[in-house]
């Protein structure tokens, strides 16, 4: 395009449009052919120079900005998936209220992450009280300077012609936060109050997982610098934290009416639309390509780890090719492993998620066939783990605790077994991945999820803000919460679950 414009500039307009009125060169004061060629050569040389200098720099900055920007709509597909998944897994009388809950979680997560979640991520990598770390990108003082929506730091929290990265980086992290809320959302469908749920979602998405990310997903994170924890794709710090947060909530929330019989045996409560649920799960898989893409740091910028290659958030090298190999093999392994025991499309697609989650910690360094086997093993244990939880009286409507919590920790520990000895940071004398370090990380991730989930839901229960009233639950939450009907033609003739 530039070349075309350049050549057009060099051709006098009267030669092109009106040859009848052509004058000689001296009369018109225009360049001779030789001069024009010389000018053209000079402009081409300038363009070539720009291509290897400032022009390349601008192009790289735009690439890095666009790279993160595109991860955001991809991650929103995760939420389209969770929306379909939860609504399909709900009975007809609750289908819209499940959707409303999920949409509101997304809507409240974005501003609360803007208000304080982003600040927490930069404030506490070294732990409490928030001292500065060796990389110079952490600590309360640093967070105060870049992550508040007021004062001088506001310049990095809004439109700024000199800052191409803060907004898109914030956007990617805000969508990570939304993902944690959606993970919890599915487990608690059909009996939770809307506002109580939103408060829990905010505590999880704008605080609990952010602390886990600061500690274990930041180059200054104490779990990384002291224990060598490596969790590239956030198996522990997103999935396990959210999964076990959900478990803490489920203990206080209790099962849906009709889920368990007097003798403790469980009834299956089928959702109203299995195809919608399965397609939703597939959409989540699509969105996870964006999620994992956003876990990668592009090269060549002042904030990049390398001038010429992609890096993980720890600064260790990675390629998008690694992700392509291992995500695909993980998805396949998870589906195949789950199919062996269940033959159920719901669990097969949950197995696909489990396949990604079980390999997420080491997607940057696993060999694809190795990733396949780990994912397949995760698929094999998935349903038995979910059944075990159900026998303990936990009504996890979509298996979120198992898929995200149990398998998330499984993935963190698996990397400790297979990835021991790998440097956790791209610095001299870096701490290395170890089984004990990964187990320690898994314990911390479990606690960062379970404890706040249990404590906050307990407080909400004390104030009567956790569970919907019995009469409303039996009537259906759509009647209570939503002035619309999911399937109006069905009226009151919709089938009722026998367990009720």
């Amino acid at each position: 395009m530039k070349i075309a414009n350049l050549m057009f500039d060099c051709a006098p307009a009267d030669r092109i449009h009106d040859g009848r009125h052509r004058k000689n060169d001296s009369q018109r004061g225009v360049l001779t052919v030789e001069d024009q060629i010389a000018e053209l050569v000079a402009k081409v040389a300038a363009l070539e120079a720009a291509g290897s200098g400032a022009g390349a720099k601008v192009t790289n900055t735009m690439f890095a900005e666009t790279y993160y920007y595109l991860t955001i709509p991809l991650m929103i597909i995760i939420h389209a998936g969770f929306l379909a998944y939860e609504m399909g897994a709900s009975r007809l009388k609750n289908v819209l209220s499940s959707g409303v809950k999920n949409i509101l979680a997304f809507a409240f997560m974005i501003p609360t992450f803007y208000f304080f979640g982003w600040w927490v991520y930069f404030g506490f990598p070294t732990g409490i009280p928030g001292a500065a770390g060796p990389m110079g990108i952490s600590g309360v003082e640093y967070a105060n300077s870049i992550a508040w929506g007021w004062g001088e730091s506001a310049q990095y929290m809004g439109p700024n012609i000199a800052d191409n990265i803060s907004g898109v980086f914030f956007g990617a992290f805000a969508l990570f936060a939304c993902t944690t809320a959606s993970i919890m959302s599915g487990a608690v469908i059909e009996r939770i109050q809307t506002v109580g749920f939103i408060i829990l979602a905010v505590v999880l998405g704008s605080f609990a997982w952010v602390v886990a990310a600061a500690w274990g997903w930041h180059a200054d994170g104490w779990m990384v610098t002291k224990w060598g924890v490596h969790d590239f794709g956030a198996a522990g710090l997103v999935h396990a934290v959210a999964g076990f947060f959900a478990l803490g909530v489920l203990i206080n929330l209790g099962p849906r009416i009709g889920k368990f019989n007097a003798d403790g045996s469980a009834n299956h409560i089928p959702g109203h639309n299995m195809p919608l649920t399965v397609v939703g799960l597939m959409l989540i898989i699509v969105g996870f390509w964006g999620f994992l893409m956003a876990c990668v740091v592009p090269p060549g910028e002042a904030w990049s780890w390398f001038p010429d290659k992609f890096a993980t958030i720890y600064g260790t090298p990675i390629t998008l090719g690694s992700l392509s190999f291992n995500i695909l093999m993980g998805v396949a392994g998870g589906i195949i492993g789950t199919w062996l025991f269940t033959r159920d499309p719901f669990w097969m697609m949950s197995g696909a998620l489990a396949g990604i989650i079980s390999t997420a910690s080491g997607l940057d360094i696993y060999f694809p066939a190795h990733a396949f086997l780990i994912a397949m093993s995760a698929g094999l244990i998935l349903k038995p783990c979910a059944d075990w939880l159900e026998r303990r009286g936990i009504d996890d409507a979509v298996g979120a605790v198992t898929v995200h919590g149990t398998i998330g920790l499984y993935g963190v520990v698996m990397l400790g077994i297979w990835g021991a000895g790998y440097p956790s940071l791209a610095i001299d004398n870096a701490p290395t991945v170890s089984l004990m370090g990964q187990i320690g990380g898994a314990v911390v991730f479990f606690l960062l999820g379970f404890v706040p989930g249990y404590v906050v839901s307990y407080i909400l229960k004390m104030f009567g803000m956790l569970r919907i009233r019995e009469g409303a639950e039996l009537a259906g939450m759509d009647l209570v919460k939503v002035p619309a009907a999911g399937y109006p033609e069905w009226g009151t003739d919709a089938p009722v679950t026998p367990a009720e």
Partner: protein
Amino acid sequence: MFPYSEASWSVVDGAMFIGWGTSLPGITTVLAMIACVVVLVIGQRSESAKAKTFDK
């Protein structure tokens, strides 16, 4: 509200949002926080009242 002394894009070299350099960003941030809390309070009250109508 243009945040630079000269009304020209050629002088813009950093933050360019309305209110930069004033207290407006802080005020709007706090108002947005309050709005979120108020919405939750209203939502809780209305949902609780509706749910009670289904008590047997």
